[in-house]
């Protein structure tokens, strides 16, 4: 694995499986009374959030604390960043404070890539969502959730397995979605077939060259789907003429009970949250047992623990040089 996690496209199939399998092991912790591991004791992880994100930030924070890391929350709001401090100076500050890893959420696409490529800081950079680019840990937790549900046998038997041949339908605002971009990379790497369903206005130019299929017709795709992932659609989009009205969007691309009934029996309904009930998903679907939203949140903690564990090398490599790529931790984790 690389030293950073900036894009799901950087993950090989082996990398991805290693993270998923490690997450399975770590997930067993959450059933225990004492959920903490000493793995990252003495290591400093900074959560650098330039954008409000309660759920992702909390998820990372829980993951970091369960691994016993020293956690620093650096919120752009109310800090010097809001007074005009540059990303560079913020990074230099964190470097000076000895950050071993920086989890960054930024409104600008590519900000984590800039941090990772710069010599501003030397710790691992973990992308927690950048603009409309990527959100790799979300894709990992989605894949983790799919693997648990769609692979025969219980979680324990799913180790080392990908999602080969599984058909995943992702519905909604692909154009503005970092979740969609990370998922298409990761799911393809794991062998799944991805179909995007959206109004043509919400698909990026050039998507015909992505490793996925495109449809404008949700109902024709549902019967062939093993998982359907509904993306959040912001109401403001209709003001920029991406679609005429909220109701028309719901009618054409929303998932309601009738449409859910067209899914194969084993299929699951996913959503990265936050859901806009009544827009892309009805309450009936959101609250149904097929909907994995809450489970995805729980899985997010395990995935983020696995990513931190692997990138920071775990206890075994705690004294190692900070800059060595830790491909050797592959064996350790298994």
């Amino acid at each position, binding site marked *: 694995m690389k030293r950073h996690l900036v894009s799901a496209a950087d993950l090989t199939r082996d990398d991805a499986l290693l993270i998923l399998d490690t997450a399975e092991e770590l997930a067993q912790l959450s059933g225990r009374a004492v959920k903490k591991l000493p793995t990252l004791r003495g290591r400093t992880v900074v959560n650098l959030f330039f954008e409000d994100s309660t759920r992702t930030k909390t998820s990372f924070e829980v993951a970091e604390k369960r691994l016993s890391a020293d956690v620093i929350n650096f919120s752009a709001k109310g800090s010097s960043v809001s007074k005009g401090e540059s990303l*560079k100076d913020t990074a230099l500050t964190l470097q000076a404070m000895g950050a071993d890893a920086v989890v960054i959420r930024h409104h*600008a696409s590519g900000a984590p890539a800039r941090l990772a*490529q710069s010599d501003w800081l030397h710790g691992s950079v973990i992308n927690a969502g950048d603009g409309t*680019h990527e959100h790799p840990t979300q894709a990992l937790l989605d894949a983790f959730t799919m693997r648990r549900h769609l692979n025969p046998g219980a979680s324990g038997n799913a180790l080392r397995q990908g999602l080969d041949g599984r058909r995943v339908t992702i519905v909604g605002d692909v154009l503005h979605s970092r979740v969609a971009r990370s998922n298409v990379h990761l799911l393809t790497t794991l062998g799944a077939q991805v179909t995007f369903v959206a109004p043509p206005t919400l698909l*990026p*130019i*050039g998507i015909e060259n992505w490793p996925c299929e495109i449809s404008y017709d949700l109902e024709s795709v549902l019967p062939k789907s093993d998982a359907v992932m509904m993306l959040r659609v912001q109401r403001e989009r209709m003001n920029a003429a991406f679609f005429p009205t909220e109701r028309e969007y719901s009618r054409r691309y929303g998932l309601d009970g009738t449409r859910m009934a067209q899914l194969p029996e084993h299929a699951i309904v996913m959503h990265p949250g936050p859901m806009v009930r009544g827009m892309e998903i009805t309450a009936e679907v959101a609250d149904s047992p097929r909907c994995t939203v809450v489970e995805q949140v729980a899985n997010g903690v395990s995935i983020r623990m696995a990513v931190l564990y692997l990138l920071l090398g775990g206890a075994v490599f705690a004294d190692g040089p900070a800059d060595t790529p830790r491909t050797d931790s592959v064996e350790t984790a298994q």
Partner: protein
Amino acid sequence: MTTYLIRNAQITGGAPQDLHLADGVIKAIGTDLAVEADIEIDATGLIVLPGLVDLHTHLREPGREDAETVLTGTQAAAMGGFTAVHAMANTTPVADTAGVVEQVWRLGQEAGYCDVQPVGAVTVGLEGKKLAELGAMHESAANVRVFSDDGKCVDDAVLMRRALEYVKAFDGVVAQHAQEPRLTEGAQMNEGQVSGELGLGGWPAVAEEAIIARDVLLAAHVGSRLHVCHVSTAGSVEIIRWAKAKGWDVTAEVTPHHLLLTDELVRSYDPVYKVNPPLRTAEDVQALRKALADGTIDAVATDHAPHPAEDKDCEWAAAAMGMVGLETALSVVQQTMVDTGLLNWEGVADRMSRRPARIGRLAGHGRPVSVGEPANLVLFDPAYRGAVNPESFATRSRNTPYRGLDLPGRVHATFLRGRATVLAGELAEQGGEE
């Protein structure tokens, strides 16, 4: 005044000849000239071109002297082989009055490295609402003939029509920055495969092409001259080719970076590649080279856009748009046009000196290299190969996309009316106009 004897130079790539420069003009050309001169230059292997003319330079003064001044900008121009540059109007304050254009013109005179021809803003404050006093800027000491809101598009069709008509009275030209504003709201890079993958706001080619199409029709309708700034797409080339075939008075420029670089570079998210108009695709690059070769595009213009380090040392969306280009322009043209066989040195002289001087109506520039003409010349060594080192630039800024890249050719000397502004690859001290 120092006199020069240049030995064995190839005039626009021709057979080696000697040139004698004195009294600001080319006194004699011939083989084995038997004349005395203060300084003799062995120019064996060097090409002589008429001094280059840039239709599109941002000198940043007044207002952003931290990025560039007229002095440092014209020093960079001289190092690049330029003897005249058109200074764009988007300074602070905007060059939309006779006072500001005269100030910029005077600063150029005082610096003495390169003629500075200020461009006047088309509209007050570049706001696209109300015509600036175009006549007053023309009548000022700066004698403005090129007007542009560059950086912004004159998107109001009526205002554009009136500007085109109005400047006819003094043989002016409107240089349009073609960018439909609504189609480029939040735009960060060329809209295409790469923007979709990177999640960066797309800047569609049609936003440029739609404005050019409208403007050539407007220019034809009112019988005016139109110049199109920094053409960047294959579609724009087609429209301009069509307009020229109609016999309409339309000219166009292309930047060196659009002749060489593509949007694939944006994958690094390094804002040094952020520029307006954005880097396009390889197909666009090929179309632009072809159009420059066949004359559909008239001129190479640098769009030299210096920015201080902090405006590029940040995330992509927060970064300023633009790249410096004066000191690398001729090398990039050699690499993309000459070394590829698309253009010979005569052609380079035409696209980088003669035609831009004609578009800007600059007397004394873009003249033939012949006896009696003003000695505005550049001596260029096309055999040189070396990595671009921004730390050695004369410009105050370092935002070049070519850092570390091996580019061919190097300016050996530049002469402005017979005075060396660059000699042996080094800036020559100037004391202003004599």
